[in-house]
């Protein structure tokens, strides 16, 4: 199988270890990985503001990097960016190439559970107590878990992968699917509410004795870690790929 790796802008800059872990993990399972080196961003920062004019510029750059590649999937280690491409990404003309590119873009956890159907990572040990933070985009956009608002069968794909890790303890916090308040630009334009939501999320982890917060979305964790560090807790934050690949941490 051949995939293109979609590395969101903030991961390239702030969390290169997450992209490295994702790349190594895919390579471990004999997947041929292409990394388009001129990629920048999915356009979510401007699209969330309702700014279609500027989103179009970013979407055009994304399409130029990905739409002509001969790959089976475009894999991204970030639920909210993948959701942006799959469900929004409507500022540029929807040519056949663009829609095909959007349809084969997939989030990393779901690439393992739904495409590769690999859920056994029992060769990895992680002897810690963790909580899973599935982002709002991953839950309500990509359905990486069942939605608590719906009376539907319960599942959690991230937990399905992490459950197989040796010596891991997964704890459920009081409000597992409550938004942490990152919300992209919301976190600075609506600072007071965003910070309060982040503080409440961090308190939930602390109250439940969590050591590590693990997520398929680093953007939420960037905000949560910012709050947590400011409040001087001992919480640590990791992307799910870092555990599944056993590093780099």
């Amino acid at each position, binding site marked *: 199988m051949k995939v293109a790796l979609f*590395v969101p*802008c903030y991961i*390239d*800059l*702030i969390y*290169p270890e997450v*992209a*490295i872990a994702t790349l190594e993990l895919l390579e471990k399972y004999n997947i041929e*990985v292409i*990394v388009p*080196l*001129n*990629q*920048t*961003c999915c356009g979510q*920062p*401007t699209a*969330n*503001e*309702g*700014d*279609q*004019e*500027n*989103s179009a*510029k*970013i979407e*055009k*750059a994304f399409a130029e990097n990905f739409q002509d590649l001969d790959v089976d999937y475009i894999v991204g280690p970030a639920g909210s960016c993948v959701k942006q491409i799959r469900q929004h990404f409507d500022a540029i003309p929807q040519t056949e190439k663009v829609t095909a590119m959007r349809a084969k873009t997939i989030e990393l956890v779901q690439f393992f559970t739904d495409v590769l159907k690999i859920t056994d990572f029992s060769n990895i040990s992680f002897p810690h107590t963790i909580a899973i933070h599935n982002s*709002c*985009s991953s839950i*309500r956009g990509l359905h990486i878990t069942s*939605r*608590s608002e*719906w*009376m*539907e069968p319960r599942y959690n794909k991230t937990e399905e992968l992490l459950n197989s890790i040796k010596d891991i303890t997964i704890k459920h916090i009081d409000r597992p*699917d*409550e*938004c942490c*308040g990152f*919300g992209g630009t*919301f*976190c*600075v*334009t*609506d*600072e*007071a*509410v*965003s*910070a*309060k*939501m*982040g503080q409440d999320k961090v308190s939930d982890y602390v109250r439940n004795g969590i050591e590590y917060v693990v997520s398929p979305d680093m953007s939420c964790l*960037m*905000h949560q870690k*910012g709050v947590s*560090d*400011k409040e001087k807790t001992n919480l640590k934050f990791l992307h799910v790929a870092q555990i599944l690949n056993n590093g780099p941490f």
Partner: protein
Amino acid sequence: MKKVNVEKNAAEFIYQDDIHVTEHDKNLWNARQKRDTAAAQIPEWEELRNLASAIKEHTLTHLDQYLEQFVTNAEKRGIKVHFANDAAEHNAIAYEILSSHRVKNIIKSKSMLQEECGMTPFLEEKGIGVLETDLGERIQQLSEQIPSHIVMPAIHQTKEDIAKLFAEKIGTDPNNTDPASLNTAMRNNARPKFLLADAGMTGGNFAIAETGTFVVCTNEGNADLTASLPPLHIASIGIEKILPKAEDLGVFIRILSRSALGTPATQYTSHFTGPREGAEMHIILTDNGRSKRLAMDEFWKSLKCIRCGACMNTCPVYRRSSGLAYGATYSGPIGIIIDPTFDAKKYSELPFHSSLCGSCSEVCPVHINIAEQIMDWRKVMMKNKEVDFSRRMAFKAVGVMLGHPKLFRAVEKVAYNAINILPEAITENKTLDPWAAHRKLPDVKKETFREWYIKNRKNNEQ
């Protein structure tokens, strides 16, 4: 009209003390959890939601014929039906009916439509006394505030606030914060006044076309008192409240209170089909922007709303802001998408007061795509240039940067240098950077992934 600064108002609610925001969040989250428990007990819950959504969409797309049917049948039952195009007409009609009956005092039960029309201040100005019979609404009336929640109007106030208010207004002990005694005190104070009213005004939750009946749902039975004590009953009903058949009502009664408070039904579900002997019954069917909204491709589905408040209870932003922050009749997620249809300038910042978590759309019992409409309103505000110039320019810069790979790489380097070189006193200065007031900045690595990749996987590069 001055823009509502919802972010600033929300910040004031959060920072007033540690008690209000914590209690507010806890009580509303509790309502959401009770809703989940109640919904889980109904095996056909999701079918009910789909059915409710389909009935509403069908009715709204055939509204003209169902409205005519409703009016014909209501008039057959002896109800006098009036039509109001907007708030001013609604208020004028209400005043006309009241003054022709020489009404001095009215009692009213909860009606969001009457709130929307600003009816109470209008009538008071004309010398008519208005008394709210719903406890939460009465608290808000005495506080001189608009309701902060569709279903729980005074939910932003603590029992200490209410003890203080009642002490001042009706002479109770300010130190007695026991909810039951506060409730009794208000009942004893208000009930004698109910008996003196010359007319009663209610809203209407549902209006059934095939029978001409309208239905009012309350938990305190106050709509029944309002409708039954005085000899004149006037109901204000929005044109979107129509249901085709009596059998449709069951679907909505089953989802309304479960979604709102997690109870199987409201304590009182009162059906009004014509006046009792010797009394008069009027309906003011009111448009007030609804038919204009029905013609808006992106936003017409907001008319499906049954005013349960589930989207408010689940909204993490609303729970930390309180309804008053929105400065509008409707607050929370549903308010964000309805309010701009009344005044797109005044409410232009509301669509940005959302983390876009999407829980509102998922919890809605009639499947209104609230989150999607919030995004669509952002597009409208951006296009209409209702967004601050500096904010628009900032995103223009982002667009240019992220649209040009080379520029993006250059900016990445600058960001790295800025975050690592500037002292914390500058990068964490609240006025310079809203990120840093309550958050540390992330560490920026010496090497981007791209640089690592070129170094370590160069031979794979395409």
